[in-house]
């Protein structure tokens, strides 16, 4: 099998589709492009495809990463051109590289195991005083640790979240919208969502914004300091 890694966008037009539906979009585009996709064995074969990290519904991305396999070797540029011709608005392949195996026959780690950091930018209307906003973010940044009481439909957990935040959260104005930037660490055992940090800032630190009005974008994903596609 011949493995490729792609750098893809998830744009405004497809902001509100789920991770699973996003994968479906790419699978159907592969079929439309008549690319010789490789399938798993078994009763219910599915296309061999893996993502670095699932992207939540409502979040766009400048750079998503996906590994997929072909049954025949094809020129990476050709795969990219054929796929781009069959992808809907908002989904664009920016780069594709073949995943070369290491000389010592060591296998490449999976994308999910390689990713360790993601950058996010969040835009929303400022609903109060700018100085107050700066102050809340500073207060949050200064803390050494912060335990978040996370309630999901499945379980309730207390998580120390500062371990997942690499640099201080940056605050600025972008036009008439407030902009937050954050770098989030992804480990094998856990991470935190940018939307959760936003919620904490609004609810616990008095950031004068409404989280439901925020638009979130994932700007980049890294492994060992490099863009994931530069690891292959």
């Amino acid at each position, binding site marked *: 099998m011949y493995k490729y890694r792609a750098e893809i966008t998830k744009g405004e037009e497809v902001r509100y589709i789920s991770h699973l539906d996003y994968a479906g979009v790419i699978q159907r585009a592969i079929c*439309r492009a008549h690319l010789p996709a490789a399938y798993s064995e078994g009763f219910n074969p599915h296309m061999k495809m893996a993502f670095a990290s699932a992207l939540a519904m*409502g979040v766009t991305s400048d750079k998503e990463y996906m590994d997929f396999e072909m049954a025949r070797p094809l020129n990476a540029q050709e795969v990219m051109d054929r796929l781009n011709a069959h992808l809907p608005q908002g989904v664009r392949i920016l780069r594709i590289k073949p995943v070369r195996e290491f000389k010592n026959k060591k296998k490449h780690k999976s994308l999910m195991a390689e990713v360790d950091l993601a950058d996010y930018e969040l835009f929303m209307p400022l609903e109060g005083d700018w100085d107050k906003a700066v102050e809340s973010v500073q207060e949050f940044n200064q803390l050494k640790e912060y335990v978040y009481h996370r309630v999901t439909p499945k379980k309730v957990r207390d998580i120390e979240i500062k371990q997942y935040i690499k640099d201080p959260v940056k605050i600025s104005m972008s036009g008439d919208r407030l902009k937050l930037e954050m770098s989030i660490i992804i480990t094998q055992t856990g991470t935190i969502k940018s939307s959760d940090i936003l919620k904490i800032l609004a609810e616990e630190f008095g950031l004068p914004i409404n989280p439901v009005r925020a638009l979130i974008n994932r700007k980049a994903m890294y492994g060992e300091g490099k863009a994931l596609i530069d690891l292959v």
Partner: protein
Amino acid sequence: MIKLTPEILQAIEKPARYTGHEWNAVEKNWDEAKCHFALALPDVYEVGMSNLGLKILYEVLNGRSDTFCERVYAPWIDMEEKMREAGIPLFSLESFNEIKSFDFLGFSLQYEMIYSNVLNMLELAGIPVWTKDRDDNDPFIVGGGPCVYNTEPVCDFFDFFILGEGEEIISEVVDVFVSWRAAGSPGGRQGFLREAARLDGIYVPAFYEPQYDDRGLFSGMKLLDDAAKPVVYKRVIKDMDQVTFVEKPVVPYIDIVHDRIMLELFRGCTRGCRFCQAGTSYRPVRERSKERLRELARKLVDSTGYNEMSLTSLSSADYSCLGEMVDDLFADFEGEKVSFSLPSLRIDSFSIDLAHKMQQVRKSGLTFAPEAGTQRLRDVINKGVTEENLLQAVEAAFKQGWKQVKLYFMMGLPTETDEDIIGIANLAKKVVDKYFEVKGRRGCTVTISVSCFVPKPFTPFQWFGQVPREEFERRQKLLKENIRDKSIKFNYHDARVSVLEGSLARGDRRLSKVIYQAWKDGAKFDGWTDLFKNEVWHEAYEKCGIDITQYNERTRDLEEPLPWEHTSPGVSRAFLRREYDKALQECLTEDCRRGKCSACGVCPALDAKVVDWRAKDV
């Protein structure tokens, strides 16, 4: 153009229902078009997007350079609430234009229990729900789909209806509209409707006035305009190979009800089951050639990227070249991981062999529809299937490795007795026993799904009174008590919905105020169990002073004029009467496709012919 804020989209379920931009969605320039047509299905996105008829019309209309056609479905209740709060009117999914600014809003009416949603969508669009209240700024409200063979209960909400198959007529309507507009809209809305009414297949209800006798029964239609025909016949496509079919269907981002390619093999079914409205209203049988189907299959896979294809028709196993065509499709798509399925199976071993071939590995379950529990009742409904046929079919299926069988039945069929009800349980038990006989062990599941019979217009059973709710429920209980084997699962329909459907299906124009009242009082998505409000409907009947049993339970006099007879699929009253008599005599009628013509009247009335490729070869 409507803008949806993140605040709204992040607070609702499945926001991708409303955000458009799907693959193959057609995005045109508004200003360049002379006619703007919104196609609606008054149910949620996942249901609306699964409708084949609308996919075809979308392609026909957008195939015209002068026409701008977009989609709209009923917003789910969470979205509706947000739209009302924010003052967002109903909008189209491609350009996000207000629906009110279109020239036409066409509703596909798939079943009666969705009528309340039509009113709700009109209100959300800011369009007056009553036809009489609309003016030049409103679109023409058009209805089509299977419910057009009795539009009377909803016709005060529509400007006109398209009867029958829409591929050709919808374009003729646009032609009339474009010239009427170019001429400066002579005569206003009435002027256009008068022109449209001259086209075959167009029914303009405002040109007809129902008459009632002193008992309050419908006594006939008075024609109010010289453009009104005494009987409007449905439109029918004569050559299925020539007509436009879907080649580039919109591919949704989210999972929909039928999330696969639908390849339509043929239209019509002449098996002649006497309860079945589709069986009379889609006549005659007209097949596509297998060459055309292969060509379409290729185009559809290439344009969508779907890897699943359903070979659809009213009874797909009756397609004359099915065996060869399936072989051809298998050859054409070898190595492409495309799977094929048949939505309905005939009760015979040919069907089992075919199903086996199509589901090489996964054996999900087989569905058969014996419809009634005893031979006597199956003869009444002209089902033409024996217990032996069923047992042979399941035997073949069990031998091929299937373990799950689903059997469809109806309850409340004319002449039904308790013996027929118990017969359903007995038949299911025989299927279970057959598995033991074939396999030497237990282990199959037989699911019996029993719906409540609703008599429909233009069927031989159109005169019969419907069984009351309490009686349906007694029979459901009786059946339940007679199922003693744990391998048999029993599902049944909510009788409360079926009796309401029964009233709307054979209602007359007086029911429009009941529908309006029920909607005003909160009825919507009545086909959805969780949202169905039974009391609201019964209170609406009461508030309007209308006795519901007059419509559902009353057995019609055979000589009585019926309020739907002026919008006809072409079957003659004489034929329906003969079939009614034969039903009571438990006599069968042959399928006219290969057997004797039963003189249903459709071919002469519509100047159409049966197209059966096997018969042509012989």
